[in-house]
């Protein structure tokens, strides 16, 4: 099975978030980037597990500049066979999806796996767009995936339970927590990553369909109000009048 895994960079969860260019761009200064956890822990690892049981290959694709190379090397160290970086600044979800779809179309993958969302912009739409552009089925937020010949059986978490879905390859799947367990790169993998191919391809259509008007930080956390345990009346009053949640 020929698998393509979409890997994107995301700021480390401990990063301080700030904006530049009049609040229209994320300030990357001093920010540590990691592999988007949904891509790494779930999509990539499940792809590797499928390769281990079914045979085939795992290629990663990243839309981004040279600053993405460290996270691509990490994916190679974890076990992908080779990597492709589409050399352009990712502008919006459709833009990214077009780049990935163009590459995937030319290279006939059986399965495109990606995380359910990135932990920075939380768009969660690239998978669906890639599937549409490739004209193949899309299963989102999958927590389990088994392969049976030319079909895949997937589980999705739905309100209060699980939905079991079947789909034929080729297929796009976005992976949620539960799909696999994080793998830590070992020394053998880190050494092997040195010589694995990282191919740089130029972007195709670089037009964008949206522009960012402004980012805003959430209001600073207000101080905590402590209510004594035996004063339920005051608690209810505060929840009603101040917090306005009941």
């Amino acid at each position: 099975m020929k698998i393509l895994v979409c890997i994107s960079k995301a700021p480390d969860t401990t990063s301080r978030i700030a904006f530049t260019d009049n609040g229209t761009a994320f300030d990357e200064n001093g920010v540590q980037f990691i592999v988007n956890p949904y891509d790494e822990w779930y999509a990539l690892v499940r792809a590797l597990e499928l390769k281990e049981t079914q045979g085939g290959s795992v290629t990663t694709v990243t839309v981004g500049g040279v600053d993405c190379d460290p996270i691509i090397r990490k994916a190679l160290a974890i076990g992908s066979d080779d990597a492709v970086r589409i050399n352009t600044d990712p502008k919006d979800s459709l833009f990214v999806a077009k780049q990935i779809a163009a590459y995937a179309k030319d290279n006939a993958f059986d399965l495109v796996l990606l995380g359910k969302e990135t932990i920075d912009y939380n768009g969660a739409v690239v998978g669906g767009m890639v599937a549409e552009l490739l004209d193949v089925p899309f299963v989102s937020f999958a927590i389990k995936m088994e392969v049976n010949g030319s079909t895949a059986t997937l589980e999705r978490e739905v309100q209060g339970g699980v939905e079991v879905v079947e789909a034929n390859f080729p297929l796009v799947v976005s992976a949620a927590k539960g799909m696999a367990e994080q793998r830590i790169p070992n020394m053998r993998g880190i050494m092997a990553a040195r010589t694995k191919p990282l191919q740089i391809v130029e972007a195709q259509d670089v037009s964008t369909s949206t522009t960012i008007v402004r980012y805003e930080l959430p209001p600073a956390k207000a101080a905590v109000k402590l209510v004594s345990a035996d004063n339920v009346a005051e608690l209810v009053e505060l929840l009603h009048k101040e917090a306005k949640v009941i």
Partner: protein
Amino acid sequence: MRTDQYQGHDYYMMDDLLTDEHKLVRDAARAWVKKEVSPVIEDAFEKGVFPRNLIKGLADVGAFGPYIPVEYGGAGLDQISYGLIMQELERCDSGLRSTASVQSSLVMYPIWKYGSEEQKQKYLPKLASGDMIGCFGLTEPDHGSNPAGMVSNFKDDGDHVILNGAKMWISNAPFADIAVIWAKSEEGRIHGMVVERGMEGFTTPTMHGKWSLRASDTGELVFDNVRVPKANILPGRSGLGAPLSCLDSARFGIAWGAIGSALDCYDSALRYSKERTQFDRPIAAFQLQQKKLAEMITEITKAQLLTFRLGQLREAGTATSAQISMAKRNNVDMALHIAREARQIHGAMGITNEYPIMRHMMNLESVITYEGTHDIHLLITGMDVTGENAFK
């Protein structure tokens, strides 16, 4: 123990000096430690046993001879990578780092540097994969700071030598498969040799009652007329310089490791000081606590710079033993001070096993003594700058 919330601290953007591979190696070691070691370390320390089920994982993250060439099973990494791995291990526990230091610098290093091709082929790949664990026997009951006075000795016996004597305070001894030991020939010259578990007359009693480095096993090596094949003698170098060169390698790793302990204590103290409220304010808002925290990060940053530069010198092959002594002495002392200050910031909680502070503090009492005591390293620097020997 609570979940390991550790975050690295990099006040002077030292990460910019590292390669992507350095960061990958370090972050992998850190992730492995958090996943596999942090949840069990307090228990191991309390029980006083090294968790042997960690050996495979230690090998996987490259903790065993990362700088040994690939053809001998190592990872062929540079000295800074070795340092970073030691830092991440000791960030969790000095005992964990000790096990890896001994295997890498005191067992694999001498075999790699002074062993015959057959010895390298026979031992190094298994040591790198953790299928074999080694220990290093230099210290004797009556010869610690003065190893030149050792009494362990061997006599010629055809294809073999007959080894007699005893070593004490030997990390990993109780479960090691092999021991690289140092003993005097009939001419009184110090030679290294590999003694294998199972050789007749060779025993490794465990030492008990340590209040430090409890998650590392320590024992004795007793040689009672042990017949060691001559093929097990390291042919490449003899004299005290041979074991001392191994100590250089291990001390280099300790210099990095101590930064790990210090970072963990600082990290915990910083978090605690922001969370703990007294007199209606987080204790981090009080000048006395800020003085402690500000001095901690200052000392850590100085040590990081010193040690990174030492890594460059060591990689270039120009670091002197005296330069390594300075870093080992400075960093371990720095870490011990930070552990003590961090413990106070945690108030009473600081004495419990809810936090790693007290464990680090107890561990560092060994680290400041082994691989050359704090005093001995000072004498090394003193001799280096004055040209006067104040040892004897």
